[in-house]
């Protein structure tokens, strides 16, 4: 339970309420698999689970993209170069990027949900030849809230990847789509019978997106979502993150829609 301390290399704002903290894991680096998370500790203040948002192939820079919503995450915004952050991890079941090889890959992201998906996107793009068509369907609240905007723009310019962005509301300066992210699914380039989907975002958005994908013909066992629950220990011992029989921290956070389906409709599980 004792964290390992790493110095902050940099902190920058991604949007008004979201920022990225870059940590130096030292010469040994920090290996992780896409979709895994760390427990990050601010000295004396507390510990929170945060998905790793960087490139798994670049183990010398450990990135976490964080939204300041509580006392610990808000304090992280004030971290400066050289400050020490406690790290325990990596924890959790990763996105099954291997299972997706030779298939069309559909990433569906909602809001800050793009951060836990980004390592998987990096992996797929790093091994682009192993995959068929790749698409990213990304929904955010407003054009103002777009995460990793430069990168999304860059991906959008690629010839081997389809990127569709939609916002809930916009003014006339926005040239893109307005509406919920599920609306992008019917027009995305994938063969439902040979596609694997990775969804990350608010639970209700994931549920609707998974339903839409299933409706289009993607098998529930090939639709993966990343669940969020209150996690205190990260290792399945504190009991907080239970969702039915599963501990989100150790049996997840990534699950198939098939595994979660019956529970997502029950209230207050």
């Amino acid at each position, binding site marked *: *339970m*004792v964290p390992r*301390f790493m110095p902050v290399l940099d902190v920058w704002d991604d949007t008004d309420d979201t920022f990225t903290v870059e940590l130096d894991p030292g010469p040994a680096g920090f290996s992780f698999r896409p979709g895994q998370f760390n427990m990050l*500790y601010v*000295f*004396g*203040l*507390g*510990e929170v689970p945060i998905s790793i948002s960087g490139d798994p192939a670049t183990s010398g820079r450990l990135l976490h993209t964080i*939204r300041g*919503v*509580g006392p610990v995450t808000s304090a992280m915004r004030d971290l400066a170069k050289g400050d*020490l952050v*406690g790290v325990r991890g990596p924890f959790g079941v990763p996105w099954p990027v291997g299972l997706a090889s030779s298939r069309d890959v559909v990433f569906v992201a909602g809001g800050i949900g793009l951060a836990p998906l980004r390592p998987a996107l990096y992996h797929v793009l790093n091994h682009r030849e192993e995959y068929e068509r790749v698409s990213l369907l990304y929904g955010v609240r407003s054009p103002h809230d777009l995460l990793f905007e430069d990168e999304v723009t860059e991906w959008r310019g690629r010839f081997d990847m389809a990127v569709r962005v939609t916002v809930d509301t916009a003014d006339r300066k926005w040239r893109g789509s307005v509406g919920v992210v599920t609306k992008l699914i019917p027009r995305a380039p994938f063969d439902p019978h040979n596609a694997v989907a990775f969804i990350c975002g608010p639970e209700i958005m994931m549920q609707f997106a998974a339903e839409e994908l299933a409706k289009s013909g993607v098998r529930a066992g090939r639709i993966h979502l990343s669940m*969020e*629950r*209150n996690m*205190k*220990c990260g*290792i*399945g*011992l*504190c*009991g*907080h993150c*239970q969702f*039915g*029989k599963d*501990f989100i921290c*150790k049996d997840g956070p990534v699950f198939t829609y098939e595994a979660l389906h019956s529970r997502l409709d*029950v*209230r*207050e*599980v």
Partner: protein
Amino acid sequence: MSTTAVVERENFEELFEALRARGYESVGPTVRDSTIVYDHIETVADLPVGWTDIQEAGTYRLVRRKDEALFGYVIGPHSFKKYLFPPRHTLFTLEKTSEGVKLVDAGDPVPQYAFIGMRPCELAAMSIQDRVFGEGPFFDTEYLRRRQQVFVVAVNCVETGGTCFCTSMGTGPKALEGFDLSVTELLGDAGHRFLIEAGSPLGEEVLADLPHRAAESGEVADAERLLEQAEGAMGRSLDTGGIKELLVGNPEHPRWERVGEQCLTCTNCTMVCPTCFCATVEDTQSLDGATAERVRRWDSCFTTEFSYIHGGSLRPSAAARYRQWMTHKLASWIDQFGTSGCVGCGRCITWCPVGIDITKIAAAIRASEEKKHALA
């Protein structure tokens, strides 16, 4: 393992001596605030001599026995869990130095405990927690380092309480394994004696230190008869057949709403449960910010904070929290750890201030399910 030995009442004190000599700190039942609690005990006189308890849903009362039995009660609100998984303990203390952050203290020191008077249901609870904390892939080292050195003196239940249902859960009234010594207390005309069986080499060693003789076949038969009687005298019962499917398959049963209306979400049931393992951590720092500490304390799924994620609690209703607790205990525990999370000790029934009864809720859900099938 070994044959059964008999230790007379006047020699029972020697057990404490033998354990002390081996460096054990004895903890076990003693009377405090009109309740039998577990605490540090030195001698037979610290035991609840001549006391028994009357238990019903929401009711617990100590009354005098007609005899001087040492273990003539059932169980109190405490379980031995508190010694292996302390209600509150420091996980670590850190200090900021010029070179970085230094680990000052890696947690509380661990005494070597002897558990005196551990009931079979509690022994079963300990073996369940052994799985929870020790089966991996992650281990609770705090629990394991305490657990490794425990000496168990189990005491079989010749009398049962009003809220007991260990027979239903297959955990009692006789301890079958996991003990160093197992004791059955015999009273009556033939004298106050203890039938003792050793369950480990260390147990045999300790037993060898006590003045004892081999049990007569009549004494063994007497004990068996008492335990058999106890088996049939449970205050409660719970039908565990297909319980997992029953509860998981009925998340919207109206009974959850009804129990939610009664439940005060006081967390008593989780605090007295010998298997509940949920915990939270509190991080604090000194005023000058130089040192920081992490304390772990028991938590309960009956609080709204338990399921809090940014934006709010995921289980705002009492009904959902009760359902979570009971479904976890009796159903999802089986998926998680290959065993029920309930040992049938009945504490959650006794110590519920409004007398909510887990066996009744389970029976009610089963009854409506059977009715549904009968109609179909």
